[in-house]
């Protein structure tokens, strides 16, 4: 079973996203900020990361840059998931190594479409 790490400081968003991702037959783990997510990735790289932008301790962008520098850190497909939806933010996410970008709010259909876009389903 493929694995997906959901990184968001909102417990509600993590819960909603987890339900959708589980329906796509992923084993889900959660982290509430970038530092916690990075620690989890160092133990085991997931297949996919659903990543919020604005978080305390370490934000999504810093996490992504750090992840891509890690050994094996190129492997996870990273889907940024943010309310920052202007082209500048989106381009910065792509430049930093994001594979896809999901604009919040999202629903199950959008999440599935984006997972399909990067070949996860």
């Amino acid at each position, binding site marked *: 079973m493929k694995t997906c790490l959901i990184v968001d400081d909102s417990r509600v968003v993590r819960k909603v996203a987890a339900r959708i991702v589980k329906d796509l037959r992923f084993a889900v783990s959660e982290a509430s900020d970038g530092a916690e997510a990075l620690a989890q990735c160092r133990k085991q790289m997931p297949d996919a990361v659903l990543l919020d932008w604005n978080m305390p301790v370490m934000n999504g962008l810093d996490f992504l840059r750090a992840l891509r520098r890690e050994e094996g850190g190129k492997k996870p497909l990273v889907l940024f998931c943010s309310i920052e939806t202007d082209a500048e933010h989106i381009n910065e996410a792509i430049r930093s190594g994001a594979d896809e970008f999901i604009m919040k709010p999202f629903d199950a259909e959008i999440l599935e479409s984006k997972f399909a*876009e990067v070949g996860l389903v």
Partner: protein
Amino acid sequence: MQDAVFDELADLALKGSGQSIPKSKSYLIEARLSPIARREGFGTMDDLVHCLKSRANPVFAAECAAALVSKDTWFFRDREMLHRLVNEILPARLKAGNTGRLKIWVAGGSTGQEALSIAMLLEDELPASLRGAKIDILSTDICKVTTERARAGRYGHYEVQKGLSVHRLVKHFTRMETGQWEAAEPLRSRISFRQHNLLESAAGLGKFDVILCRNVLSGMDRTARIRVIENITAQLMPGGVILLGQGEGLIGLTDQLEPARDIRGAWVAAGTAARDASAA
């Protein structure tokens, strides 16, 4: 919704657009007509039906019938088919036609995502065999409002996230202050948008190398399907191809078309496959 009101509106949909709406989906009628009802100041669907019956207004009736047609579409719906169109069907047509020009008709194109998907593929992944070809795309829809939306090329938050990669989004669309995303001019200029009812003759639209009529027939009753097939077949150039949606077959509806060899969902003039086989 009362049975009598449903019957009137279902009959309007059938006669005006060929749509067959079962009673179990009466909620679709409410959902699709409510913007018109609100705009006209009708409190209920009964009021709208009363208006339709009490004064003959064919323009308003046609608007209501068009509004009852599903607008469900998204970018790169059936990606495999679109890739085959660009990489196999169009190059073959170009070679056969010998004019350097190709004409594509997206019949029942709704808000334009299918036509734009083709335009994006032609921009991003143009095969060498199509270089230099002049490729015209026409997208038509029965509904005036939908056609205007398609022509404007502006899409909301949800629409641009269905089927469209973020890479194509930032390459081909610009985010507006309203939060909508507008398709770039080079894409939009590849496509003409026109209002057209597929139940009517399409002779005025010209002839086409490829006609995409995808996920249109499935909502129609048998009589309407036959009429639409007759109308679009009449606009097919010799050797041209009609592309239907998944699960939309024509067996028993027409003897003018037959499935194309090796291309799922593609239909060609009857006799073509046998000619191709003997030529091979």
